[in-house]
């Protein structure tokens, strides 16, 4: 099978591409050129590697989840600990790369969108580190749900703009960031936080996250002497999943499994499982799967996890799904929260609720495959930010 991961126009099969106002084409071309140059620029790569070693905390370690495994059919479970990165998730991999590119392009201002606040915090962090002005767009609804992260961004020196249009959540924050970018494109870089959006974002953000899978593949081989049977990751926009999948794509024996947010259940219509419950369409500059109605209007997504609460998904995932190289399953809110609780109590690690979707998927898959199987899970983020949500869910008084 020939797998075509990004042509010169940023297509993954029929997906990807650019659906944007002409005003942005120049900036996207400039970004693509900067990214392509950086790939072979030893100075750039050395600077990024050094930042990852001394600031991010890479390589992230592998932890074996022995007690959790007992609930997953005895399958051997290995965790790629992206939660231990600086700022608490995989998001830092991408923002440091893009912040260095921003400096290369001579721009001094970055804008970012954020849902749960993790990408906003990571962007504000990278901006502080490299001396860039940072404006973060966040749905007004999310600024209330994630007040602590708003404060974190402000402490880091970023301006947080609450977005009051549309559904006042992540998708509207992206709309507003795009409007800012159309207006200020000459001086501003849009630090998109996932593997979606117009080309070159899906390819570039994947390239900054693929280090996750490259490290994990070597680590798992060194530890177990073989490749894992399956690699699991949660999928909202899909950046942590692409990050860990990418190095394993040529390994045809390794199943790649993305866990989408099933919300109240796909059958209820209240979910964020774009591949499992959506259809082909164009949103935010790229062709992929989209949650949309019969007129092509975007439908609001629903998930207990703000970071997965997005009605689109990266085009590379749409392609990997269609060609059968990756599988996508939906995990409902309740199953994710049960895994969140179980994992906290068996492993002493409070995961992000996003990540808990992948853990719930591992419980099911482990029971399907049995104790001979080895599962690699991307532990994409830690759960500090979710304490309030989890306490509300489990009825723990604060």
């Amino acid at each position, binding site marked *: 099978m020939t797998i075509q991961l990004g042509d010169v*126009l940023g297509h993954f099969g029929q997906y990807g*591409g*650019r*659906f*944007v*106002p*002409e*005003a942005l*084409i*120049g*900036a996207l071309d400039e970004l693509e050129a900067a990214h392509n140059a950086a790939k072979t620029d030893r100075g750039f790569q050395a600077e990024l590697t050094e930042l990852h070693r001394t600031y991010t905390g890479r390589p992230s370690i592998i932890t074996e989840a022995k007690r959790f495994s007992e609930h997953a059919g005895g399958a051997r479970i290995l965790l790629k600990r992206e939660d231990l990165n600086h700022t608490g998730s995989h998001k830092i991999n991408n923002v440091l790369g893009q912040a260095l590119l921003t400096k290369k392009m001579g721009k001094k201002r970055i804008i970012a969108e954020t849902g749960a606040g993790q990408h906003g915090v990571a962007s504000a962090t990278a901006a502080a580190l490299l001396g860039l002005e940072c404006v973060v767009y966040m749905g007004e609804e999310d600024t209330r749900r994630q007040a602590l992260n708003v404060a974190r961004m402000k402490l880091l020196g970023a301006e947080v703009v609450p977005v009051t*249009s*549309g559904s006042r959540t992540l*998708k*509207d924050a992206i*709309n507003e960031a*795009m*409007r800012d970018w*159309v*207006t*200020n*494109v*000459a001086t501003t870089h849009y630090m998109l936080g996932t593997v979606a959006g117009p080309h070159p974002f899906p390819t570039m953000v994947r390239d900054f996250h693929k280090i996750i899978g490259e490290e994990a593949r070597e680590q798992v081989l060194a530890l177990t002497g073989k490749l894992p049977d399956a690699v699991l990751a949660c999928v909202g926009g899909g950046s942590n999943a692409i990050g860990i999948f990418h190095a394993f794509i040529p390994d045809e024996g390794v199943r790649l499994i993305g866990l989408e947010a099933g919300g109240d259940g796909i059958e209820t219509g209240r979910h964020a499982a774009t591949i499992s419950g959506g259809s082909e*369409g*164009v*949103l*935010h*500059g790229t*062709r992929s799967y*989209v949650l*949309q109605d*019969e*007129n*092509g*209007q*975007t439908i609001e997504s629903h998930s207990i996890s703000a970071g997965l609460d997005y009605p689109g998904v990266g085009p590379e995932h749409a392609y990997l799904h269609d060609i059968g190289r990756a599988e996508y399953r939906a995990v409902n809110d309740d199953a994710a929260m049960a895994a969140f609780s179980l994992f906290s109590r068996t492993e002493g690690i409070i995961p992000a609720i996003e990540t808990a979707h992948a853990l719930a998927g591992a419980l099911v898959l482990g029971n399907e495959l049995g104790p001979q199987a080895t599962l690699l899970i991307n532990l994409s983020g830690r759960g500090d930010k979710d304490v309030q949500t989890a306490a509300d869910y489990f009825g723990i008084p604060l």
Partner: protein
Amino acid sequence: MSTALDLVFEKTRSENRAALIAYIPAGFPSKSGCEKAVRALAEAGVDAIEIGYPYSDPIMDGPTIQEAAEISLKGGTNAADVFSALKVASDTGVASVVMTYWNPIEKYGVKEFAQSIADNGGSGVITPDLTIEESARWLEAVDNSGINPIYVVAPSTSDARLAKVTSKTGGFVYAASVMGVTGARTNVSVDASALVARVKNTTKLPVSVGLGVSTREQAKQVAAYADGVIVGSAFIKLLLDAKSEQEGLDAISALAKELALGVREGR
């Protein structure tokens, strides 16, 4: 074969003036209100009308058009309402086009959408987020249906790219006057005249300027160098601010008459 839009520009060129093009979203301020507004604009002397297809994620639009789109979508506006408003416009005798983000076209069916435009007397479609690289199916469809594919260019568009985009364009080239989103502005940027000149180096097509025009004086200034003057947010703001539907219709009619004078004073 010429569309009604092509004929409008032939006429305005022969009269040595710019065309006045008005934008209004389908289903705004209501389904019937939109039809009344279309008739009022046509009677007041606009040369062409753009019917907007309201979209849930309008990244090229400022707060005024966003608000109108939200009102329209809450009223349940769909493709049938867009075509019906288009037909009302074309029945008045003005040229009519639809302006829409890409996804609703794709969901409706690319061929079918182009044909429905033609069937309802429309001359073309403005597609602000469709790049020429992603246009193959669309260009085939508009060609089959005999309508104009109208692309938007911006001050940041390079000369080389302008040539590529205008070579695919029909009807007129939509020149965005500034880097930014739709909405009334105090000054229409000097970028606009420079952009129009650069576009004209690449094509014989008429060039119309949109984004920011709201007054007779601005219409006059733009009409000095452009073939068309596009006004949208200014009309919508009047309809949003009006205390009654009739007051809104009277206000847009009065503004359209002023603007129609403006486009005749530019040269």
